[in-house]
């Protein structure tokens, strides 16, 4: 069974403005997918539809085979597909970290004894064990987002949806969150990361590019980043290392075509100048 499958998904507002236009995507269980698109491309709307926060105008969304248009399924879908939003300050509901994480499981009626265990596990997964009794307002942005992720993990979701969850963080906070997300994916959780940081898409399994509510590109990061002209047309940009590599190649340096990360470019450049 697919973790997520949409068919001919359309969404428009009452004033007729079309946000999603015939979107067909599917995500395998355990996959790590990055959804890229400029502001207004429809990516956040898509996330909200997956989670049942918005209802599509037409078409269907199935999460583990459960149709989100059937209200009876919503409870189950939200339990299995957890979402983390952009602003860390808007997602805290309690004044102590452990209460904040307990909020979700309490809501779905998890027995109190098990809630304690879930809090332990969730905090360990995001490496925040030492902050169990801390006050969320005193944490850094990266730490707050990890607590928000822990809050979702306490519901034992099978899909984790990140809606620009690193956009408001500094580079250090972003790194913290992304490394936790990678580990969660390695442990089997399906990840859908909605972002416009191209670097975050470098080590995912598949990239989906949305533009004007349509799926324009789909493929491995290598395949997608190789099509730089198209990316630009859709308001995106290559990772900086890829841009520099491309320009150097155009200037006559024998740099391989599939260079997208800083590490890879550094290695090639050094070898090149060392040899010569």
């Amino acid at each position, binding site marked *: 069974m697919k973790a997520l499958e949409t068919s001919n998904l359309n969404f428009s507002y009452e004033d007729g403005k079309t946000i999603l236009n015939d979107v067909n995507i599917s995500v395998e269980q355990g996959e790590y997918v990055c959804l890229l*698109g*400029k*502001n*207004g491309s429809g990516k956040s709307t898509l996330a909200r539809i997956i989670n049942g926060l918005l209802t599509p105008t037409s078409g269907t969304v199935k999460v583990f085979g459960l149709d989100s248009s059937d209200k009876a399924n919503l409870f189950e879908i939200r339990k299995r597909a957890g979402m983390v939003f*952009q602003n860390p300050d808007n997602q805290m509901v309690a004044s102590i970290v452990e209460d904040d994480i307990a909020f979700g499981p309490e809501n779905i009626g998890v027995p109190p004894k098990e809630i304690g265990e879930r809090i332990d596990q969730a905090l360990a997964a995001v490496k925040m064990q030492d902050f169990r009794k801390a006050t969320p307002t005193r944490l*850094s*942005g990266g730490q707050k987002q990890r607590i928000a992720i822990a809050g979702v993990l306490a519901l034992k979701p099978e899909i984790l949806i990140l809606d*620009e969850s690193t*956009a*408001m963080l*500094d*580079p*250090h*906070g972003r790194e913290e969150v992304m490394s936790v997300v990678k580990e969660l994916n390695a442990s089997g959780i399906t990840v859908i990361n909605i972002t*416009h940081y*191209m670097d975050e898409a470098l080590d995912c399994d598949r990239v989906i590019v949305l533009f004007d509510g349509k799926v324009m590109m789909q493929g491995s990061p290598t395949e997608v980043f190789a099509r730089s002209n198209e990316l630009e047309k859709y*308001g*995106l*940009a290559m990772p*900086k*290392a890829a*841009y*520099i590599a491309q*320009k*150097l190649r155009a*200037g*006559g*340096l024998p740099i391989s075509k599939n260079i997208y990360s*800083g590490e890879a*470019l*550094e290695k090639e*450049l*050094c070898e*090149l*100048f*060392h040899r*010569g």
Partner: protein
Amino acid sequence: MRIVSQGLTYTYNKSTPFESKALKNITLTVEEGEFFGIIGHTGSGKSTFIQHLNGLIPVSEGSLYVGETNMKFYGKKEYAALSDQNAPYAEGKKLSYRKYKKAYKADMKKLRSRVGVVFQYPEYQLFGETVFDDVAFGVKNFFPESTPQEVEKRVKEAVLRVGLNYDEVKDKSPFDLSGGQKRRVALAGVIVTEPQILVLDEPVAGLDPQGKKELLALLHTLHKNVIKTIIIVSHDMDDVAENCTKVAVFSKGELIAVAPPRELFKDGEKLKEVGLDVPLTARLASALAETGTVIDTDFTAEDFISRVIEKYKNRVKRT
């Protein structure tokens, strides 16, 4: 207008158990005409510093001049200890403390129309019913004697300067605009008073790559045409390397370096010591230096690329 701070120090929650020094002895000059960058971790003191620049935080210890304006604010006891000659706004005779405070406040208000500060995510601070109302607020606040025609002229100019179509957006609710447009409206609301200095805290945070490129280009246009000095606070070393003429590095409330990118990023060790990264170009250049190839660059991508290509061609010619 130059900005000159000497020994600027700020303590939060002074004389309480929560006392903490946010700024320690900052001595820094920002010359008129710079496109100045301030970098540092969250909590490094950079935000506290910029809040001093337009008097949102009054100077308590040390000194700060923004143009001719002395930003120092004297507490009651401190003021009482001043002589008639040393007291600000005194013409031979010191003012009463109440009058002094009033004069200081008026001075700060005047200054704020000349030093604009755009905070992080300024679009969250929009409040007007229409774009026009929102942008006009600054004019009405700072130049209350303006006629409606003057207000309209200034608003129109500001909206055009941030790259929006005036006739299209002026009657719209700012909340109906896209994220990038909202940010531009917020920026228009600040430049509408025609400040000479514009300070922006993380101006491109949260924007997509195209939006980021456009906003930075807009800032350069403003810098070239209307605003003398621009100061940006940024986490992104690549943005700083690409855009700034000079950079100040803050760490734990201290100023640890001030230099143009060309010098600052040549030796990344100092930055690494305080847990900051260097731009990608600097990282590549220092790796190349280890193989014996020195790239003399200002660390902008274009300059780096052309110098590496040049080096490579010379090598090929020789061999």
